[in-house]
């Protein structure tokens, strides 16, 4: 008979928790403001379902905004539940508010159909880059085109940043989420903080 176990959440440690002070200190202030922080412990669930299949239909039905249909699309919203398009049959549901029940909901929806639902909440973390200069920090770190007319708000793609695979999600006009796998988080954070330095100063063209 199992004992009653304590809530373990106090024991969690996010990949950048130990760098909180450094991240805060890295903020560039002034007209070219840019700040960086970790958004820890988001619920993330990997979904694999082929469009047109019963699994895809079933899972889309239990998600408030269904599943995204094309590269870059996000079904849902950054501040609630957003489902990112990873590949034609691969998606990642992301909720910054913890949704511990969601895995079971999606697994139930999948049932015995062909597909996959996997809790990936520990797999990645979220680094949020925010401020007018965020775009210029990204110019120095990712080869993807982040021009505002091309990379519109609530678009997300798989790309590389600091030569490391990440998901890149523009959540607001000047706010971006960078989602590396956990082991890469420090490397990404150090690289971004380094790229932020110059925005403390009057810009050299």
């Amino acid at each position, binding site marked *: 008979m199992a004992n009653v176990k304590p809530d373990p959440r106090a024991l969690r440690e996010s990949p950048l928790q130990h760098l909180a002070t450094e991240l805060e200190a890295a903020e560039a202030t002034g007209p070219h403001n840019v700040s960086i922080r970790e958004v820890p412990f988001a619920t993330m669930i990997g979904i694999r379902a082929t469009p047109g299949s019963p699994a895809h239909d079933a899972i889309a039905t239990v998600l408030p905004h269904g599943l995204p249909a094309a590269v870059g699309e996000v079904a849902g919203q950054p501040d609630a539940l957003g489902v990112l398009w990873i590949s034609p049959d691969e998606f990642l549901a992301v909720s910054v508010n913890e949704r511990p029940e969601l895995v079971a909901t999606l697994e139930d929806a999948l049932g015995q159909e062909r597909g996959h639902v996997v809790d*990936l909440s520990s797999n990645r973390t979220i680094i949020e880059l925010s401020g007018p200069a965020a775009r210029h920090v990204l110019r120095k770190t990712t080869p993807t085109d982040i021009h505002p007319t091309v990379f519109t708000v609530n678009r997300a793609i798989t790309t590389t940043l600091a030569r490391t695979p990440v998901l890149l999600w523009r959540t607001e006009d000047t706010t971006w989420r960078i989602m590396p796998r956990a082991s890469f988080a420090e490397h990404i954070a150090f690289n971004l903080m380094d790229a932020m330095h110059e925005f403390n100063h009057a810009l050299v063209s």
Partner: protein
Amino acid sequence: MTPIAVTTGTSFRVPAAIAPGAAINRDETVEVTIDGHTMTAYRGDTVTSALLANGHRRVGDSIYLGRPRGVLACGVEEPNSLLTVTRAKAETISETMLIGPTVEVTNNMVAEHVQGIGKLAETADPEYYDYTYEHPDVLVVGAGPAGLAAALQASRAGARVVILDERATFGGNLVGTPDAVIDGKPVETWIAETVAELQANDDVTLLNRTTVFGGYENNYFMATQRRTDHLDDQVPFGVSRERTLHLRAKQVVLATGSHERPIVFKNNDRPGIMLASGIAGYLNRYGVLAGSSIALLTTNDSVYLLAQQLAELGHLVAVIDVRADLSEAALQAVAAGIDVIAGSVVCDTTASDQGALAGITVAEYLADGELGATRHFEVDTLGVSGGWSPVIHLHSQRQGKVVWDHEVQGFVIGQPRADFHYAGSVTGSLSLGEALANGANAGAAAADATGHFSFATEPVAAAGHRGPVAALRMVPSPDGEDQDAYANHFVDLHRDQTVQDVLRATGAGMSSVEHIKRYTSISTGNDQGKTGAVNAIGVMSEILDGHTMDDIGTTTFRAPYSPISYVGLAGRQRGELFDALRKTAMDRAHEALDAVFEMAGEWRRASYYPRAGETKAQAIRRETIAARNGVGMIDSSTLGKIEVRGKDSAEFLNRIYTNGFLKLKVGRGRYGVMTGVDGKVFDDGVTLRLAEDRFFMHTTSGGAQRVLNWLENWHQTEWSHLDATFTSVSEQFATVAVSGPKARRVVEQLASDVDFAPEAFEFMEFRETTLDNGIPARISRISFTGELSYEIAVPTQYGRALWDAVAQAGAAYDITPYGLEAQRILRAEKGFVIVGQDTDGTNSPQDVGMDWVVSKIKQDFLGKRSYQLDDFLRDDREELVAIMATDKNSMVRDGAALVSAEDLDAPRPVSTSGHVTGYYDSAALDRTFGLALVRGGSKRIGEKLYAPAYDPPVEFEITPLISFDPEGTRRDGER
């Protein structure tokens, strides 16, 4: 080196009222030291304009012949003035091989001309560099009048535009030109207004001091922006000295202009002999007069504006025009009172005692190409225009066709490249009106191709009619036709190569420009033949009967267009940011234990944990003893992990692994080996069956992505009918392995729900549970040491908490963290293979002692058919065995070659019997031992082998693969 002065102590700066100098600010002086002479310059000056302004004209001696050389040009095409520059900043580097006319002066900088070949700085560069990624619709290369007109048009159409220019000023050669008018405004006004409009547009990036140096497939371009060298003060940390731009452009407008060429004649290399455009550039951009008595030699009309300016200043001696018939521009000059000597050339020069130009010999240039009557003029400066070479480098780098144009007398664009547009003098036209018109049209066309249509508005300027260009590149020697008569006809000033050198090459039988380039080294220098290459081809066409410029053609241009620094390419990718460093959730726990780390791919992993006073060997030995006799713990988080789900998952895995997976029971795991279709081992690991339709696969740390691709590839291309889906969960889980006879005592304290009794929780079983501290976990009895082992996997967020909990629970048993070094020994004692260390991509499972893992009953699996090939049935295949040195303390390096006793003393070369894949000091065996791949090794147990790389050679005995506890009695630990 003493700079040669034209007139010592005299300033050659022209009063601002006459030539203000568009690039300088006369209100701000700058003190610089050049070649040991401290002098005053103006902000905006370059090293060469400062030198000329102060009457200095020598810029170092030539590289091989040691002849005095002066400034030739006013731009990047300069072949003579190469500098080592040290700026007066705290954090800086002495950079060498910089091109004089491109180096802007700053206060208290020290510049020295390079003598002989350049030398790299011996210290690390402390400055900061970075790179950016840009995605313009339209990339405009060059911000002269054509480029500015193109950018203006494209940006007004709504396109995203990046326009880059290598110089400090915008406006190209137009800058400072007197009397030019665009749209009814003075050019300076038009340029300023255009620049202001472009800068105000958020979707336009307009950068000066930025050189596009390379063009690559799919309109990928690279450029270097020099951001801070022109500033006196140290810039704050984070502002890069140089920025490399990686540009992916939809359309490109090349408005790169053209370079003037010299003419080859006897003694054409003296200080004071310049390009006419160089003299014009120093006058118009910097208000500097190149000399006091100046003659011009030309094949074309481009010098006549300069002639007029020099005549007005009272410094023009004469214009020597190669053309016998005076052009309209020449006639106007004559009418203005200028001495134009038509149908003539300069055939020789004289020098002062110091080697600078003192006079020129002007000869009639007869219709048959022979020299006629000569006259001598005393001049200190000669401006030469042998015609203009369009800057077609980026076009040619992209394999664009290049042809010789007789009218232009230059190599021009043969056929436009797709998505390229051309504007300005790169097209061969030297007309300002045409440059502006085709600039605007190129901008409109380029923008239109990206979905931004507009009607071109052509800025208006005078057409500037030009007369014909004479086809002269080499003046005959006044001394006859021998090779020796051409010993001082310089073709490539940087490489010190003459017509005589070209004659030697053709005399050796060469007729291809590519061969002659390499034989003579012409065009291979710092300047890549910007001024010399066409003349070299011209000389060849004179020498080789029946060859013309057309059929000799030019060599292919290659990046970089002008020299760039490696450190600029590296950008921020140096030091700590050089490469991604992957850390596990327990990394800081290892740090706290003073771990020594090693790199495993990108992963940083604990190698061993030395205690105070311990050597590396002692620490590793202690760790292995703990895992054998007590209990140890290791961070195994880096292993690759893939979840496989679907009704056919077992069938799928059965095809992927060499051994069977259909009958694996839920709750149990099985070790499996993957081979390629060639039957060679490429990955291994334990796979757990979580449910009938759900498996949890472990891969090697480095193989995680490769295995996932392998699974997807087979599923998507061959077996898509099988219901199996794969998701990488490598980083979802962190893992601690607890290993040793006392391992059970430790894990019992962590998970009281689990019955750890050996008969209740068998080897290769796992349990899903919640640890007593609330963390959800999966505990598996998997062993990589041969001891009783439990691998505890938890969500990565709990990885650190798990490590601490295990350490705490094990404290009573002196639980010992062990690193990769200890693990390599522990597994080697048991003969467990590390894929990639003991295998090299050529080994079958049978070769490495795992015949048992290859199913004899499965109908098929990937690699199966390979085992019937003759090559796999050879009895001399390399097989993995253990080896023991005769001296039990001997150590050898991994990879050491092994030979048999007969071959040890046989004449070399001999074939090896194999090599050591790992050699270790074993506490359990109380001796050193190792693993080795040995030909026919399993049948040579007891035989002696030798490592001949050691003196004396180290002797080994071949022993069975499993050195420790071959019966596996230790698997269940302490009772």
